[in-house]
């Protein structure tokens, strides 16, 4: 039922005045009754009435606590009313000094923050406009909150994060505006971005394959070198299955490595495998693999760096074939044969040589050649290892006579013929040694 005013004819101002007088008298009487020793009274219905002095104290205490909390914050905080007027600011805001950063802190209580932003529209960037828009939206109850990162040019360039949050569920009671200095975080982020960019440039420019796959084996990244090597264009490979395009039919080893990598097995970190070029050719790649993880630590794919070792492998194979032939020739040779490397150590010899110098099989391999020919050979080895042209010119010349030394120390005359030999270990010298003692 709608309540009728008790005395419609009475002046409302008079009535208010009367009620206040009653309230004050009630408080005074309660204080008197309780000798000033009571803070609150409760009636039989449970209605609590806090006496004036206690009320004042509690209110003051609450405000002091909140101010202390706000003042302890390093961020610059201001309280705006629903119109955008600055009602209260914390210590950091007060200390932030000059309002030269027009959109930033430094403005005093009583100033309208929205008007400052509007007024600054001509002199700074569009950030100010966006700040004003965002604040208006929060104060009108349209946005639950608003935040923006903005730069300031002086006194030293830096960055702030501004956040505006409504005081109640909507902005009609005002909002809290907070400016946080995020210059250091921004700088760290920029540094990280720059470092990532350099790393990407490095991957793009080295003569190494760089490849990233997702968990399904689809290509998420491939550098220019991979494309040059295989003849594909980037748009033709990104998003495609690596194993469909690049792995020769039957190339199960690479699939196994990929599965092992995703399972985080360390054994999968290095391997060699052949990949297909667009024209159907094959290249042998030596891979170094690692897994890519999400921020949560989950394996989300793989990253690999690969070196094209096709030519190197071919050369190695060629040399190995040559070495095999050399061994055959050595065994069939009528003379004692000793093969010496650039360091003057014996790398290979035949049975005749072992017998001639009185050593057991393989005893001489790794020993210095001077152990069996003490003098006159070391300097000649250098000659033979000189230019190939010189070597070839000399190899047909007659042998040289030197003293050989057996294991038991006995010396004997030998005729030695030196010739160069290209092998997997680099240039070697073959010495054909003939015992000439019997000639004497």
């Amino acid at each position, binding site marked *: 039922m709608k309540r009728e005013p008790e005395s419609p004819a009475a002046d409302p101002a008079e009535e208010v005045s009367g009620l206040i007088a009653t309230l004050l008298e009630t408080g005074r009487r309660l204080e008197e009754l309780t*000798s000033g*020793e009571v*803070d609150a009274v409760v009636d039989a219905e449970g209605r*609590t009435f*806090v006496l004036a002095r206690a009320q004042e104290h509690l209110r003051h205490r609450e405000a002091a606590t909140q101010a202390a909390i706000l003042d302890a914050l390093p961020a610059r905080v201001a309280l705006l009313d629903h119109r955008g007027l600055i009602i209260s600011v914390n210590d950091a805001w007060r200390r932030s000094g000059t309002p030269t950063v027009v959109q930033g802190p430094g403005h005093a209580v009583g100033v309208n923050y929205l008007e400052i932003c509007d007024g600054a529209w001509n002199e700074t960037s569009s950030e100010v406009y966006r700040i004003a828009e965002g604040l208006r939206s929060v104060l009108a109850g349209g946005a639950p909150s608003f935040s923006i990162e903005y730069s300031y040019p002086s006194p030293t360039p830096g960055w702030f994060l501004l956040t505006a949050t409504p005081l109640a569920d909507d902005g009609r009671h005002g909002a809290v505006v907070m400016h946080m200095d995020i210059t250091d975080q921004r700088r760290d982020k920029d540094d990280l971005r720059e470092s990532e960019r350099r790393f990407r440039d490095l991957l793009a420019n080295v003569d190494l394959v760089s490849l990233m796959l997702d968990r399904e084996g689809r290509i998420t990244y491939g550098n220019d070198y991979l494309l040059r090597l295989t003849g594909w264009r980037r748009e033709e490979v990104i998003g495609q299955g690596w194993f469909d395009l690049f792995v020769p039919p039957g190339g199960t080893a690479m699939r196994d490595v990929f599965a092992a990598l995703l399972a985080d097995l360390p054994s999968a970190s290095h391997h060699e495998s052949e990949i297909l070029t667009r024209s159907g050719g094959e290249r042998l790649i030596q891979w170094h693999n690692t897994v890519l993880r999400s921020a949560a630590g989950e394996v989300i794919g793989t990253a690999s760096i690969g070196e094209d070792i096709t030519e190197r492998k071919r050369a190695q194979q060629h040399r190995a074939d040559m070495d095999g032939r050399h061994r055959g020739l050595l065994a069939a040779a009528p003379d004692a044969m000793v093969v010496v490397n650039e360091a003057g150590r014996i790398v290979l010899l035949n049975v005749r040589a072992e017998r001639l110098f009185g050593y057991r099989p393989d005893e001489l391999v790794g020993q210095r050649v001077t152990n069996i020919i003490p003098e006159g050979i070391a300097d000649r080895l250098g000659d033979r290892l000189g230019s190939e042209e010189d070597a070839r010119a000399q190899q047909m010349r007659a042998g040289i006579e030197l003293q050989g030394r057996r294991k038991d120390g006995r010396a004997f005359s030998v005729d030695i013929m030196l010739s160069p030999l290209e092998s997997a270990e680099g240039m070697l010298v073959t010495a054909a040694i003939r015992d000439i003692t019997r000639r004497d």
Partner: protein
Amino acid sequence: MSRRVMFKFRLYVAGDAPNSAQARANLDEICRSYLPDWHDIEIVDVLREPKRALDDRVLMTPTLVKLSPSPSRRIVGTLSQTEPVLQALGLEASAA
């Protein structure tokens, strides 16, 4: 009366309003001086728990209720006047 009896108190306060804070400090001091180790104090903030005040028919805060040993007693105010308080709590006779 043996001093080994545990004294149980319940103090009703209105947050940390001045009289309530004073009562709390005075009760602590009394207990420390007269009942070291033989007291137990429960604080009830009527601003947070108005129903408890109503249930216990506490109409003014601060109010101290001595729950045990019997007889139970109530004292309203800051507990600043030590002698009457000790008397009311039945502690005077056993005071040192």
